[in-house]
């Protein structure tokens, strides 16, 4: 690295890798963030953006690779050390202390102190107030965090970054909670920082924002670095291609469409206050309907609403031709709808319990005679289930916690299918499981559809959705924004639809 190059570089990421268990979050990622530039970091869900931010700020330790600030290799152990070096990050969800006041949150971990070692409140409130004013926020630094709006919380986080002697500001999806006017204010601040020679690393899903403000763009995909280019050299189509353009894994060939049966599930103008609204779609026997969208778009909320976990506030649901009002999961299970939650370890399975106890949990009522469980029939069901779904286990008494991610997922399948549903909602069924198990999960899903079940498949894995869905619904910011048939759907089209700015539509 020549001297002139290092003086232009604010931060250099060199060969950074990180693995969580079996899944690879980052693989040998290298790029430079230049001084006085706004650098956009793009990628699909799970591409490794947030992990990279956590590594830069010292929350997570990289397995290998280095971070350079200027020409100096650094190794931050805490975000405070990063902050001292001039790097501050604003994370996606505000991480603040509700019981403390605004100024204390802004300075937590790095309080200005007096000679006696006490917190210098006078200085603290003055500096907090000037930072808030810089952001155009009329907020008393003495007011408590509890009671502020989400946008205000976000600005408090940004103020926290600004009071540091900043060289690089990292913003992880800062606008997802902001109104257009508030986003505009934030962009003005970003430009001011840039004009002062500071750098900004901006993570966003909104390509409009990238076009509006970014000088350079880095794209990550599956934890790998795809490209770093000046924004002027890439158009939107090229960008989307880079984000999704992996070869469709040959492991799962596209499914041949089976004959569709009668309508099993119809949803009309479904809404849940503050989460999603006006969602209408239908699901037929033998059909797999994919649901695409970004994290936080409201897909899981729609599923949980249908399953009665969070009953919908508006709209109508028809199951097997009958109008139903989802109230609780028990009722929906009885009516023939099953839901495999995204977070199977905390929501879908009881880890310390045995396979047999997990599999039969939703149907213990049916297996009991006069309130006493029939253990023999329990074991029989579990034994046939592990054979059907090819669960690698020594016996049905083995605790679920001792199984691998893929096998746990299969147990979760067996568990919900023991209820003999007519419609099944799968929420990210292949998230975090190895590629072999993934293919098996796809196989099971297709077999289920072929046997006459209607399947709603929520997934952030676009190749997977495209491979096994008959239709794809795209959810963005709580709205159903597009629907593609299997023939029309491409990764680019779905990604475009999912990343569009629908704020105008929603308001």
């Amino acid at each position, binding site marked *: 690295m020549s001297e002139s190059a290092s003086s232009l570089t604010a931060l250099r990421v060199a060969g950074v890798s990180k693995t969580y268990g079996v899944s690879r979050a980052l693989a040998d990622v290298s790029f430079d963030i230049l001084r006085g530039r706004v650098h956009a970091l793009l990628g699909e869900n799970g591409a490794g953006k947030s992990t990279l931010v956590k590594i830069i700020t010292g929350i997570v330790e990289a397995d290998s690779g280095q971070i350079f600030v200027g020409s100096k290799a650094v190794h931050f152990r*805490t975000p405070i050390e990063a902050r001292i070096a001039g790097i501050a990050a604003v994370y996606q969800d505000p*991480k603040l*202390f*509700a019981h*403390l006041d605004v100024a204390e949150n802004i300075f937590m971990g790095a309080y200005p102190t007096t000679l006696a070692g006490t917190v210098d409140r006078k200085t603290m409130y003055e500096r907090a107030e000037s930072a808030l004013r810089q952001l155009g926020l009329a907020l008393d630094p003495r007011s408590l965090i509890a009671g502020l709006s*989400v946008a205000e919380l976000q600005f408090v986080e940004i103020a926290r970054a600004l009071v540091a002697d900043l060289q690089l500001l990292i913003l992880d999806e800062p606008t997802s909670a902001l109104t257009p006017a508030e986003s505009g204010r934030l962009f003005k601040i970003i430009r001011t920082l840039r004009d002062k020679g500071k750098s900004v690393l901006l993570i966003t899903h909104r390509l409009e924002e990238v076009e509006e403000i970014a000088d350079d763009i880095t794209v990550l995909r599956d934890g790998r670095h795809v490209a770093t280019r000046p924004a002027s050299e890439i158009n939107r189509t090229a960008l989307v291609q880079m984000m999704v353009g992996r070869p469709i894994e040959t492991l799962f060939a596209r499914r041949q469409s089976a004959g569709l049966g009668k309508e099993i599930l119809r949803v009309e103008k479904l809404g849940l206050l503050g989460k999603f609204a006006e969602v209408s779609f239908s699901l037929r026997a033998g059909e797999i309907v994919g649901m695409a969208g970004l994290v936080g778009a409201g897909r899981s909320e729609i599923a949980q609403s249908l399953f009665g976990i969070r009953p919908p506030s508006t709209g109508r649901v028809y199951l097997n031709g009958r109008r139903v009002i989802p109230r609780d999961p028990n009722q929906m299970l009885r009516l023939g709808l099953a839901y495999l939650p995204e977070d199977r370890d905390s929501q879908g399975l009881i880890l310390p319990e045995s396979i047999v106890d997990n599999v039969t949990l939703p149907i213990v009522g049916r297996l009991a005679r006069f309130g006493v469980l029939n253990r023999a029939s329990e074991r029989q069901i579990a034994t046939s289930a592990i054979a059907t779904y090819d669960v690698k286990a020594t016996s049905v008494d083995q605790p679920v916690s001792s199984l691998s991610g893929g096998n746990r997922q299969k147990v979760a399948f067996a568990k919900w299918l023991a209820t003999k549903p007519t419609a099944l909602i799968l929420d990210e069924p292949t998230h975090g499981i190895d590629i072999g198990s993934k293919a098996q999960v796809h196989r099971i899903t297709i077999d289920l559809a072929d046997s006459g079940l209607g399947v709603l498949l929520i997934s952030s894995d676009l190749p997977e959705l495209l491979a096994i869905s008959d239709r794809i619904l795209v959810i963005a910011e709580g709205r159903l924004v597009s629907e593609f048939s299997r023939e029309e759907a491409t990764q680019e089209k779905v990604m475009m639809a999912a990343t569009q700015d629908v*704020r105008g539509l929603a308001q």
Partner: protein
Amino acid sequence: MSLLAEKNTPTVAVQRRGFSEFALRLRVSGVLAFLFLVGLIFSLLTPQFFTVQNATAIASNAAILSIVAAAQAIVLLTRNVDVSVGSMMGFTAYLTADYASRHPNVGAELVLLALVIGLGLGMINGLLVAYGRVSSLIATLATMSLYRGFTYMYAHGQEVTSNKLPKWMLHSVDLRVWGIPALVIVCIFVVVLVAIFLRHYPIGRRIYAVGSNPLATVFYGLRIQRVVLLAYGLSGLLCGFAGLLYAARVGTVTVILASGWEMSSLAAAVIGGVSVTGGSGTVIGAALGALVLATIDNGLVLLGIPEFWRMFIQGSSIVAAAAVDVFIGARIRKSLQGQRFGRRAA
């Protein structure tokens, strides 16, 4: 002229008082109002209540509990609990009294001994909770038994009677400064010292932060385990000191000294507005809570109401205060995560 100048200064920050903020700030004034109400009721019921002499008695009774309530409050702030406070007091009281009975010429180093013992016991709790990752209730329930059990074994059923204790120790608690018991002054001093520590030192603020949002602490470079260890250490230190004061006050130190104080200290802290879910409350509030309990105790005795009612009132005030706590906590959580999509999609 001045009016004009005021108009020209940019309007600084609208005062915002959302419900949660209001509720959080209201708590200490709530305790004061409650104290006033209780005092008023007793004054109307018995003429013996509202006298200087009785007020002094109440303050003396509240004094030691206020220190222990402050200790409890520090731990509660970190979203943990310390039910071993009574056992730590008993342990320290017995050991220091025993030491004093063997060394008649012992001086102020007795205080140091009490502090060291208390600190050690507190650190054991802290290590179990912070580094051993044992749930705080279970860990301190266990040490509550352990510390008390050790005291029993050490004592062999003996008690240390007042004639074996050094005179200065017994007299010190009866001293008066301008008519105010020295014990009360010392306790106020200690509570204020702790309050200043929590309010004005960065580490004090960290104690609040850890209890307020433990998941966020990593983003601020706060080491949650150290903070929790410190909180328990402080709690032990204060309990050690309180144990010594209590020994001096009662004169005869038995192995059951201060049993049940975990309940009183918890009640005092919770009544004083310290949240059992962490992050909120003050030691001043907790000390005022101790005063409320002492006032109720005193009034009931004057009115000749049986001891049972004391426990009844203690229990129901914990339930009431905890209910308020849960209610406020729910509102705060709602305001923090709530309407992320709300304002847009709705």
